[in-house]
Structure formats: C-alpha cells, structure tokens
C-alpha cells in the first residue's frame, strides 16, 4: 500500500519534471532575460513576450477580481441563506457543477456575443476577463462551498449562543476558519485562467502588441503558445519557450498565493 502510494506520487512528479525538461530543451535556447520583457516581433518568431505577459497578468487579475465576489456570494447563498432548504441548496450546487464542466468554446462564443457585440467591448482584455470570470466563478464557488461546509456547525451555534449575530459569526469565525479552502479555490481558478485558450481567442484576440488599457485586445501566454504552434510557421521553438514562461508564471503565482494560505486548523481534534 505504502509502495503504491509512493510510486503513484513519484510517477506524477517524474511526469511533471519530464514535461518541464522537454519544454526547456526545445525552447531553452530562446530564454534570455530580454525574452521576458521585450516586444513581440515577426509574428513571434523573434523578440520577446513582454506585452503577452502584461496581457496575461491583466486578464487573470481582472477575471479573478470579477469572479471572486460572485463565487463568495454563490457559496454563502448555499451555506448561510439556503441552510435549511436542502432542495434549493442542492439545485444551486448542481448548477455550479454543470457550469464548471461547460465547454469553454461555447462560453467563449457567448462571451463574445455578450461583451464583444451587445455591450460593444469588441476584442478586448475586458471582454476576455469578463467571459473568463463566468468560467472561474462556479469553480471558485464550489471550492468555497466545500470549505464553508467543512466548518463545524458547532462553531456557528456556539458563537450564536454567545450573543453574536449571524453576520459577525460569518465574518469573524466562519470565513477565517474556511480561509485555506478560499485560497485553494482562488489558486485553482488562477491556474485555470492562465491555461485557458478557447475563451480568450474568441474574446480578447491574438494581438501581441502592448495593451494601452483594458479595452485593448491582447493575447495571453496560453493563446500565444497556441498561435505560435499552429499558425506561425517556424514558431515551434518559440512556442516551447513561451510555454516554459507560462509554467514559470503559473508556479510563481501559485507560490505567492500559498504564502497567504494559513495552516489548516483542525477544529474538531479537541472538541
């Protein structure tokens, strides 16, 4: 049993290391400090990925910021307002689960019609982030919901018994207790946002110039990798270099979020 667990874990680790090594070997020659900051030229065959990194960070930041309040509201709806209505609560949870598995191409098309055409934002980082937020919100909401449901009911009832309001109990006890799950939800969502292509090809475009504001179009790293690999002849090694940059950015963001993740407190251990 122990051997099986260790070998499975080692297999996943080796697979990840091999993937990283493969990307590094194929695209390593392109990786210079200037590559991460320089402008894209010749369709990506030369120059750097500076504007793409900026677009990526803007889209991920905006999408997370748009999705976060929706996700928190959705999770709180289930755990606080529908707490005594199991049927409604189950319906909302099922809706989140269905939305999480919605095909990203379909979401991209809907986002393009809504934000690009109806609201007139066209191909822009804003359209991309707003559409992406619809994909991230249910993902985060489910993680938050699981975290909030894991907070012992006794914590709530014993706080209420001391005369605290439901709101104070939520803000001062329940949310801090669920913080590890909330951070994990944000980490999952950021990872998903960094890796997403179909939605962003259809909404924020494939332009690689430096965006002047959030209403400019701009390709994210994942879109740039896809574009170099499929649409730019001779762009393969550059695609691998950009993929490496994507992995580095992803690991960097995840590490940053992990620093805010408090230790997991075992509330029930002593109760």
């Amino acid at each position: 049993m122990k051997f099986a667990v260790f070998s499975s874990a080692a297999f996943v680790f080796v697979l990840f290391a091999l993937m990283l090594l493969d990307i590094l070997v194929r695209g390593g020659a392109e990786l210079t400090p200037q590559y991460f900051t320089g402008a894209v030229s010749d369709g990506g065959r030369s120059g750097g990925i500076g504007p793409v990194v900026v677009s990526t960070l803007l889209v991920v930041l905006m999408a997370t910021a748009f999705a976060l309040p929706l996700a928190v509201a959705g999770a709180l709806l289930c755990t606080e307002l529908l707490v005594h209505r199991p049927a409604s609560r189950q319906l909302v949870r099922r809706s989140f689960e269905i939305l999480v598995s919605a095909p990203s191409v379909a979401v991209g098309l809907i986002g393009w019609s809504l934000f690009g055409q109806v609201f007139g934002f066209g191909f822009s980082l804003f359209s991309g982030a707003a559409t992406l937020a619809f994909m991230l919100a249910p993902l985060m909401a489910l993680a938050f919901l699981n975290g909030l449901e894991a907070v012992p009911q006794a914590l709530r009832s014993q706080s209420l018994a001391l005369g605290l309001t439901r709101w104070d109990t939520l803000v001062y006890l329940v949310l801090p207790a669920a913080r590890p799950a909330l951070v994990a939800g944000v980490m999952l969502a950021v990872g998903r946002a960094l890796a997403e292509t179909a939605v962003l090809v259809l909404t924020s475009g494939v332009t690689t110039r430096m965006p002047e504001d959030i209403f400019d179009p701009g390709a994210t790293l994942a879109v740039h990798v896809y574009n170099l690999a499929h649409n730019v002849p001779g762009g393969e090694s550059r695609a691998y270099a950009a993929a490496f940059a994507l992995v580095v950015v992803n690991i960097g963001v995840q590490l940053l979020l992990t620093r805010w993740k408090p230790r997991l407190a075992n509330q029930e251990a002593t109760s």
Partner: protein
Amino acid sequence: MIHFKKLTVRGCGQMILRELELTLPDRGTAVLLGPSGCGKTTLLRSAIREDEDDPDLEVSGTIELNGVDLRAKFVSPLAVRQKIGLIPQRPVAFPGTTWDNVTFALKHTTRLSKQEIELRARAALEEVGLEEEVWKREADCLSGGQLKRVAIARAIALEPEVLLMDEPSNGLDPLAVVRLERLIVRLSEHRLVVLVTHDLHLTRRVANVVHFLWPFPDGCRVVESGAPEKILEVPARPETKLFVQAAWEGAAALYESDDELEDCEAEECMPRRMRLVHESNPRELLPEE
C-alpha cells in the same frame, strides 16, 4: 427567577416537551435529571431561543426571567443570550489562543473599552482556574477539560444572570470533575446555574434542587422535584426510583424495579431503551453498558 410556563416543543415529527412547568430560583444550582432523549438539552436550547435557528423545532409557551417573557417578539434573541449563557456538551475551540477565545464575544457583543475587556477576561480565566501559561496557548491544542473551562470562561466573561451547562462532566477524569464541581459551586453563589447531567455523584455534590424529567409517549414532563437527598435517596415516583437505582446499582436494578414499574403505567412510562434492557438478559447487555 426563571419560569417555564406551558413550554411545548415539537421536533422531527414528535412531541419532545409537553406543557412543561418549571420554576428555578435566582441563584444556586438546579439539576435537570432524566433519561437520554427526554428533552433536557432541548429545554436549554429553547431558553436561549436557539430553536429559532433550527426550523425542525416548534416551540410554544413562555419562559420568563424576572417577569420578562424571553420569547416575546420585542425581546431580541441576542439580548436573551447575553442574559443566559449556555455551555454546550462538546465545546469547540474558536480560532486563536485561549485569551482570544475569552475576549471574542466581549469584543463583538459589548461596547466595553479595551481595559474593561481585559479585566473581564482575566477575571473569567482566573475564576475557571486556568493558569496564565494556558492563556497564550492555541485553543485547539487544549485538553478536553481545559477546553470545557475555556467555554465556561467565554460564557461567564459576559456576566450572564443564568448559566446553563449541558453535561459538563461528560468525558472528564475524576480530578477534572472535582475541579468542575468547585467551580460550579463558586459560580452558583452569584447566579443561577442549571445543569443537565446523568452524573448522580456530581448532582449529589452540587445541586440545591433537582428536577426529574420523564419521557411520556405524549412528551416529556417534570415528574418530581426536590432536594438532592430526597430525589437521589428516597424518590417518590417509580420512574425516578428506576432511574436512580439503575445509576447506583447497574442493569440488575432494572429487574428489581419490575414491581415498581407495574405501578407506573408500565407500558406508557417505560422508554423503549429501558424496556429492551428489562426484557433481555442483563449479563449480555452489561459489557455494552
């Protein structure tokens, strides 16, 4: 003085308490005794209006504290919970240290200054006998007994008029129980302490008055009240006698009580659990007991 008048509680499709009448004094220790499932905890929860957070419970009747109906619409549940403190059977550690746990409700439910909060928290922690070294320790690292005392300190820091304790000695070692008994006696000098317990030793040592509740098929009611010496040594009602004998003498006592049960409308007054014990061989049941 707290007065339960015609308190009726329905929950999960059954009658838990039926028109319960109970009067408790201003100070001292009142113990509620009775078989498991006879609504003692529900009674405590109703007193602080916790039933309002549980849609499965329907409560009617009144609970008066010094003449004010605590269940009246104009009285907020938060105000009730500041007058009546409840120490649950299994306290949960709030995030943070012991000190954070005790100051938590003071910070969020009162308008006391920082100095006043510190004074109250210090007094509460000293009252429950927790050493200063424990005050800085993470509450989720405390032992069961220490956590119980933290829960008591959390409640008494708010200076409630009435303190309700649900099975306080449950899971504590004998020394911890003795410390708890001393604490209960001290606390009851200035306020009413209501204990729900199955621990007759604890009852005998701390109670000023004992109320015995029994689960009749149409709901639980108080069948006998009096001084602990009377209820625990010479109970008048057969139900009380059965319960007390079972506690002192074990399962064998249930056989001896057989005749007594005949006098107490046997089929109606005997809860199912006891009937099972009565009809089975006690030797088989003893290891499980």
